[in-house]
């Protein structure tokens, strides 16, 4: 079943990730998630930004748009709004989605389209060779921060909770089964979901390794994701880092509220211009 998601194209066999990289694990998680959800490659779309994470669509078979650094979310929004029948996933790195694309995350949460945002959070810039990302811990020395990072790390979970995102979760890719469960729920959730997926970058992040994540994370037990203040309290815990679903707020999606779908649910691409109505508008201008 998972083979349905093997692209088998000439350009998909030579995977450009480093041996041992956490991205391989995320790829396996996605293939399992997609096939357990019974998704169809041609009805599923991954919009990715630019970065190591963003290369995913070349190694998993779905419709895809490998786009620009930081812009996966608005593109994914445009796709979903034009064709709500598609399952739409936006994917990118921590630099991609939290730094260059930060504004889009904030406002997509407000808009609440039914898309799922998967952030491969290796707490570093991989593709561009090891600069600090918004989630890099203070003290880390990098080629462009040789003095050691001193900015406050971005807490994407507390931020998403503060913005009342519809579904907010964090996982560590080292836990395959739990990650599959969480991402399944995120995709099935009606509304905007964001999942921060911790994963090691074995080349540039010497701190947040496989062992580190194992030791410094834990799964929340008995947390009520419908309690927003509790979610916030959990979200600002940092040592150890909690994993699981922090916050769920079910609410109408963008597509359900937008006037273009009020009378008609035909996807936009199947719509022809209504010339008669247009000329009726024109006639009123006499």
């Amino acid at each position: 079943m998972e083979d349905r998601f093997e692209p088998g194209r000439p350009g998909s066999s030579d995977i450009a990730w480093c041996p041992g990289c956490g991205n391989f694990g995320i790829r396996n998680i996605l293939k399992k998630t997609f096939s357990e959800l019974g998704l169809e490659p041609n009805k599923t779309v991954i919009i990715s930004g630019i970065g190591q994470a963003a290369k995913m669509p070349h190694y998993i078979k779905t419709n895809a748009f490998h786009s620009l650094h930081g812009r996966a979310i608005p593109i994914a929004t445009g796709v979903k709004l034009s064709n709500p029948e598609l399952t739409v996933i936006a994917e990118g790195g921590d630099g991609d989605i939290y730094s260059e694309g930060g504004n889009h995350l904030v406002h997509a949460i407000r808009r609440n389209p039914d898309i799922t945002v998967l952030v491969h959070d290796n707490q570093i810039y991989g593709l561009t060779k090891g600069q600090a990302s918004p989630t890099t811990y203070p003290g880390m020395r990098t080629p462009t921060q040789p003095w050691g990072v001193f900015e406050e790390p971005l807490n994407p979970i507390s931020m998403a909770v503060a913005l009342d995102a519809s579904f907010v979760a964090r996982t560590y890719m080292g836990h395959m089964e739990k990650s599959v469960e969480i991402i399944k729920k995120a995709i099935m959730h009606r509304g905007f979901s964001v999942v921060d997926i911790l994963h090691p970058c074995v080349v540039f992040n010497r701190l947040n390794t496989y062992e580190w994540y194992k030791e410094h994370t834990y799964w929340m037990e008995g947390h009520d994701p419908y309690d927003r203040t509790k979610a916030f309290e959990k979200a600002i815990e940092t040592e150890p880092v909690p994993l699981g679903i922090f916050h769920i707020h079910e609410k109408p999606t963008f597509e359900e509220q937008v006037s273009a779908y009020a009378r008609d649910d035909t996807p936009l691409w199947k719509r022809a211009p209504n010339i008669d109505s247009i000329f009726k508008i024109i006639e009123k201008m006499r």
Partner: protein
Amino acid sequence: MRLRNGGTTILLCGEAGQGIKTLEIMLLSSLKLSRFNVYGTEEYMSRVRGGMNITEIRISHHRVRAFSSHADIVIPFHKGALPWISDRISGDTVIMGDSRNMEKEFMREGKTIEIPLTDIAIRAGSRLYINMVVGGLIPGLFDGTLKLMNEYILKRFMSKGKDVVDGNLRALEEGYALGKKVKDTGSFVPAVKKDPSVAGDIVISGTEAVALGAMAGGMNFLSFYPMSPSTGVAVFAAAHSEELGILVEQAEDEIAAGNMAIGAWYAGARAMVTTSGGGFSLMTEALSLAGMAEIPLVIHIAQRPGPATGLPTRTMQGDLNMALYAGHGEFPRIILAPGNMEQAFRLSGAAFNLAELFQVPVLILTDQYFVDTHYNIPETDLERIKRDGYISEAGEDYRRYILTEDGISPRAVPGNGKGVVIANGNEHDEWGDISEDKELNRKMQEKRAIKKMDKIRKHAEMPEIIGNTGAKNAVVSWGSTYHTVKEAVERLEKDVMLLHFSWVHPLPGNLRQVLEGKTIMSVEQNVGGQFADMLSRETGLNIRYKVLKYDGRPFSVEELYEILNSIMGGEDGR
């Protein structure tokens, strides 16, 4: 100089917030209904209340569509207005209205008609109704009707209660009676005849023409971030969103607006973005993505003077170079710049077919002058373009970027067919996967920047040629200046032809033949003569004179006439 199309030009000079925009819309409709040809345009400041705004209204027996700098009638709504527009007042100009709004030096015997507008408004219920007094006054002066105006007032002020409606109606009627009286007593003699042929005409603005054209071209997605003077298109589309099934979304910024539209096109929608220069600056990267991923895209840029925030509510044609070259790397694009309402309707529609056919961005360049100008046109002049469908099905082994003779790869959308559709902003192979193969890298550059470009160029439209093609002199212009240049050139009665470009880029191949050997004068509203430079670069021809204006105000017929006349005088009166 008296304008060829004659008629009367009225300037309403008020502050923002005095209801003059409302007044203009009402006047144009009701004067048209009264069987006049009408024209209206606005110059306003970047503020919500106060300041110095000018609305020009022209009324004529003939079609009037050009900006005139000479005022036949001026109605000042506040003190300071007359000095602000003193260069538009001549010995013939009649100044009407409250004397408290007239500076002494402008009050000349026989040319000043004092009308206590404010008092009448106050009598009708509020000094705010002064615009309605004028709304009645003008039809009264020209023997027009109040019909539409009554209805408009009812609709517009219903929510504010009966008092407001009645007060406005009273003001309107009192104004009308007064106008009639002024006319009947002969202190003002209107020199405009009616034109029964306008009966079936519509009154349309540049904003409306662009929006309606896009709708007719199948636009079903509009993303934007508010920015003067481009927002009107979004407002118009939003008003009809549910009825026409057009998704209209205000994005968090222009970057999101541009990329949402790209996502929408990728999924098969027909998306447009409306913006102005500064917003377009922020879409530059998205434009380059559309170029690389071969995603169609339509962007409407309503130009205003830059750089940076510049003059947000004024007019300029200063963003042509940016439109030509925005975006890193090399990729084809199409630039259209309608010169009149008919073209705006047709080209805004055609933009969607072009974008989809060639899988490139299409930029529609208008400007503040154009979008804020209204006039009447026969509805039948709006061409019903056909929405062409170019969407293919994705077979199992679908290759989004398959190399073809003409550079165009059949374009499928996700969910249409069994295969998957891979778009890519990285350099790619035929399937859409990343490729660093030297040969393929080269071929893909050629596919986009050479083959597609060549194909588009063959499709390019010739400029509209007005006048004798054998003329020794040629005036070239583009975009919004169409009617003004045309009226000035026709008025000249010299050995001159006019070439007006509404398809601006890429230029068709055979222009050199048309222009060779002529003395070429270009007319455009920017500092550098950007169009002239492009024309000269592409044809190798020398543009002898650049007639430029860049103070944020539109060219007027009179001004252009003077300049062109003196140039051609210099050319031995040819």
